[in-house]
């Protein structure tokens, strides 16, 4: 089974969600000064939503930089978005933007660090997803 790539800021919600999944995962570094992440196998991206409610600002800049790398981009297979339904129409917007830009499916949205139910669904979903695309 291929892996996960995720991004998380200092509040660490997405990191905690990914840790609860317990699947192999690589983290996109927070700072420009860190060495950039390069992936070699197909992956699902887990990304929190930021910005001001506009699609142009929803995806965190380090994730954009990661996807601007053509090789990294060629290996993305799906996206899972973090967010909070309180943001209304902008809930999980980063997932919709990445899905659209990279022409991959938006697989799931979860809030904050995710509940046990979210973990359960994503584990089942991811397993099934890789089986199908094998």
């Amino acid at each position: 089974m291929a892996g996960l790539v995720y991004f998380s800021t200092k509040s660490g919600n997405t990191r905690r969600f990914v840790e609860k999944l317990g699947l192999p995962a690589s983290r996109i570094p927070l700072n420009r000064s860190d060495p950039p992440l390069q992936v070699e196998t197909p992956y699902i991206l887990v990304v929190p939503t930021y910005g001001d409610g506009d699609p142009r600002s929803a995806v965190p800049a380090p994730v954009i930089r990661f996807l601007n790398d053509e090789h990294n981009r060629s290996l993305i297979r799906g996206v899972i978005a973090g967010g909070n339904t309180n943001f209304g129409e902008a809930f999980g917007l980063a997932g919709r933007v990445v899905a659209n830009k990279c022409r991959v499916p938006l697989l799931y949205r979860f809030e904050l660090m995710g509940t046990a139910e979210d973990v359960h669904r994503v584990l089942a979903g991811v397993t099934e997803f890789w089986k199908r695309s094998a």
Partner: protein
Amino acid sequence: MDMPTSAARHLNRVDAINWNRLQDDKDLEVWNRLTGNFWLPEKIPLSNDIPAWNTLTEHEQQLTIRVFTGLTLLDTIQGTVGAPVLIEDALTPHEEAVFTNISFMESVHARSYSSIFSTLCATRDVDDAYRWSEENPFLQKKAELILERYRSEDPLMRKIASVFLESFLFYSGFYLPMYWSSRAKLTNTADLIRLIIRDEAIHGYYIGYKFQRQLAQLPAERQEEIKIYAYELLHELYDNEVKYTEALYDDVGLTEDVKKFLHYNANKALMNLGFEALFPASVTDVSPAILAALSPGSDENHDFFSGSGSSYVIGKTVSTEDEDWAF
């Protein structure tokens, strides 16, 4: 409680704030989103709700006004006591500035309920509801439970109480305008409430984030004690919140669904503090109409793992003209 106050609780000197020298870049990120979100009730055409208001029964109108006076009380507390004590506890000048924004926005929230009242309601009915809220033991108790913590002089307890106010206690009230909106009633009022709900998300997130940063500095046993304390306070607030909910919603038969909404939001409040959710999925299944009213349009492209589709859906085009993207 003997909390270490060592963490330089007060900025004992006032230095001119420099936004180009940040100790914590979250401060600027949150400041930008909060100021970008700025709104005033005048921008919402509330008077378009007058016809819908007149279709509500007298009892439904009374319930709605009572719910809004309850929300007004919480925003008043947060604007005049909660956010100001958090300013005192701030560790950086930028954090102080963020809390001044939060404090002011709470006053905008509190003020906007009065705009709804003056647009839709008879003065006498509103006066009655204010009297009701002053006398309702559960509303008064929830205010007291929070104010007690705010008076405790303990930065971590204050933040726990504050996150519970921002991310949990409002929701017995927010339910009703979402319910009306799902029935195509008071939709402009619902637009205004959604602006408040969005603000509260950032408030809860930010206060919870600052809480976690401070908590992480403490020894493990102390962290564990504080976590237990947080769950205890949540239970105490929850027990009272259930009674408040019953007092309001039993007559209209909505209590059970409101409770699910409480559970759902209690989980999110805990997560804002960095703690695991408490209520299992079996009691957080808020009716889909309410969730759709909360984030309208965001479920157009259902996510695949939720099991609603048989093929993967790729999002509809959203414009992302931006220099950052290189493709």
